[in-house]
Structures are given as C-alpha cells and as structure tokens.
C-alpha cells in the first residue's frame, strides 16, 4: 500500500463516528487535565506579575480578553475548515464539527466583548464605541448566533449542514477584516502588539502569562469541542434509533391490521 493511500485510509478511519467516539474517549481526559494545569499556571501568573506603569491593575484583564478574542477567530477558522470538509470532501464528521463549534465560539466572542468593555471603561472612558475593531467582532458574535439559530431551525442535519457551510464560508471574509481593522481604519482599539511581522512589542513580563493563558484557552476550546462533537454524534444516533423504532412499530401495526382483516 502506498504511503498516500495509507494516509487517506487513516483520515477516513477517523471519519467513522464509532472510531471517533473510541479515540476521543481516550484523548479527552488528558486534554481536560492539560487544560486545568495550564489554567492553574496561567491564573497564578496573571495575578503574580506586576501591574502596568500606566494601566495599573487593569492590565490583568488583557490575559483573558486577548486569548478569548484570538479563540473567537480561531473557532471560526475551525468552522470554515469544517465547512470545506462538508462541501468538498463530504467528511461525515465535518458538519458535526462545524455545528458544535458555533456555541463555543459564541461564548469566547462574548467573553472578548464583555472583558473588552470592562477594560475600555477605565482606560478609554467608555464601555463601547462603534469603531472598526469592536463592530467587526460584534458582527462575528451575531454570525455565531445566526448559525446556531439556523442549525436549530432546520430539522434534517445534512440539509442544515450544507446551508450553514455556505454561510460559514461567506462569513469568513469577516476574519481578516477583524484582524486588520486596526491597521485599515483609525480605531480607538490599539493595533496588534503580539502577532505582528516584526515580533511582539509587549514586555516579557506581560507576554508570559498571556501565552500561557492563550494555550489554556486553546486547550479548553479543543476539549469542549471534542466533547460537544461526541454529544452530537450520540444525538444523531438517538434520532436514527427512534426513526428505526417508529418504522418497526409502523410495520408491526400494519401486520396486525392484516391479521385482523
């Protein structure tokens, strides 16, 4: 067997929901433990590092605001990849992944908006402004809610998957807009100081807790995503079994009617 076909076989092995359930059952407790560990270290660093000379204590809001904002965009990127998986490769788990990532992404976006607002009030003097960065992230939040509503409105999961996959891919245009909004427009929100071509401009004292918290948030996302995908697979199994049971009951009733005649 060639190396390529072996790789394809492994990929399609994972596409089997039963295999996915077996594999994820082994993986998730380790990921949950790693998440807890990184949060413990991260939160310790959050409160043991010094405050900023200008921002004082409020700089600590950055350690949750920035990772949450990154994750809100990464989650959407995961959904866009899953949407491609649905439309191009027809991977059976792709729409399960896209559907279950949406509520998680909405929560991370919500955290980014709330903590940003609570940081904006003492630092900018306002809870909210309709500048390009804040508005584009708010649009992202609305898109997450829209996708959740769409998935709930369509009963047939395969039909919902196709419609939402197209919507996800169209909405992906918002991700570079969010990232570059601070460069393209004059915003109250500051431009990037960590992910930039010439390297981070932020002091290592603040970068250390930020990186650990970013890893913790990423691990949290993937742990919850895997668990939510498991739930969705079980939900579809329940639906299939109920259909089978209803069909069997229908056949049984028809057979009884026949004998009564």
């Amino acid at each position, binding site marked *: 067997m060639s190396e390529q076909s072996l790789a394809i076989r492994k990929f399609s092995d994972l596409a089997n929901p*039963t295999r996915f*359930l*077996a594999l994820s059952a082994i993986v998730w407790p380790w990921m949950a433990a790693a998440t807890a560990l990184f949060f413990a270290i991260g939160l310790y660093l959050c409160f043991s590092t010094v405050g900023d000379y200008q921002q*004082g*204590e*409020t700089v*600590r*809001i950055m350690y*949750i*605001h920035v990772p*949450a904002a990154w994750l809100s965009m990464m989650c959407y990127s995961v959904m866009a990849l899953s949407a491609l998986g649905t439309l191009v490769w027809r991977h059976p788990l792709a729409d399960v992944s896209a559907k279950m990532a949406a*509520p*998680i992404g909405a*929560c991370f976006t*919500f*955290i980014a908006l*709330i*903590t940003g607002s*609570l*940081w904006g*009030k*003492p630092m900018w003097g306002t809870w909210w402004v309709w500048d390009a960065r804040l508005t584009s992230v708010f649009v992202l939040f609305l898109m997450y809610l829209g996708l959740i509503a769409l998935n709930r409105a369509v009963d047939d999961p395969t039909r919902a998957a196709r419609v939402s996959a197209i919507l996800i891919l169209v909405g992906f245009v918002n991700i570079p807009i969010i990232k570059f909004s601070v460069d393209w427009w004059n915003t109250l929100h500051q431009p990037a100081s960590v992910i930039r071509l010439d390297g981070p401009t932020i002091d290592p004292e603040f970068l250390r807790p930020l990186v650990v918290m970013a890893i913790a948030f990423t691990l*949290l996302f993937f742990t*919850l995503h895997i*668990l*939510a995908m*498991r*739930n969705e697979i*079980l*939900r579809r*199994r*329940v639906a*299939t*079994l*109920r259909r*089978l*049971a209803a069909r*069997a009951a229908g056949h049984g009733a028809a057979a009884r009617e026949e004998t009564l005649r």
Partner: protein
Amino acid sequence: MNHATYVAAAYAAAFLTVAALILWVWLDGRARRRELAALEAAGIRRRSAGEAR
C-alpha cells in the same frame, strides 16, 4: 469603581461564561447517554451494535 473592581468583574464574567459552557456540554452528554441507554433497554439497537464501540 476602582480598577480592582473592573478586573474582578472581567474575571467573574469570563469564569461564569466558561462554567455555563462546561455545564451545557456535560448536561447535553448526560441526557444523550441516558436516551441511548433507555432505547437499548427497550431493545432498540443499531445494526452495527455488535461491533466494537
């Protein structure tokens, strides 16, 4: 409000949101597993249920 209040409010909001998310995933999983167990107890099984799960 002083700065510490804003910091505490931000961490509390993040904690509550994450807690709600974890609770949702956990309760959803528990409800689905119960439904499957009830169906199985009623003798309704998947055709491939005999295979490794």
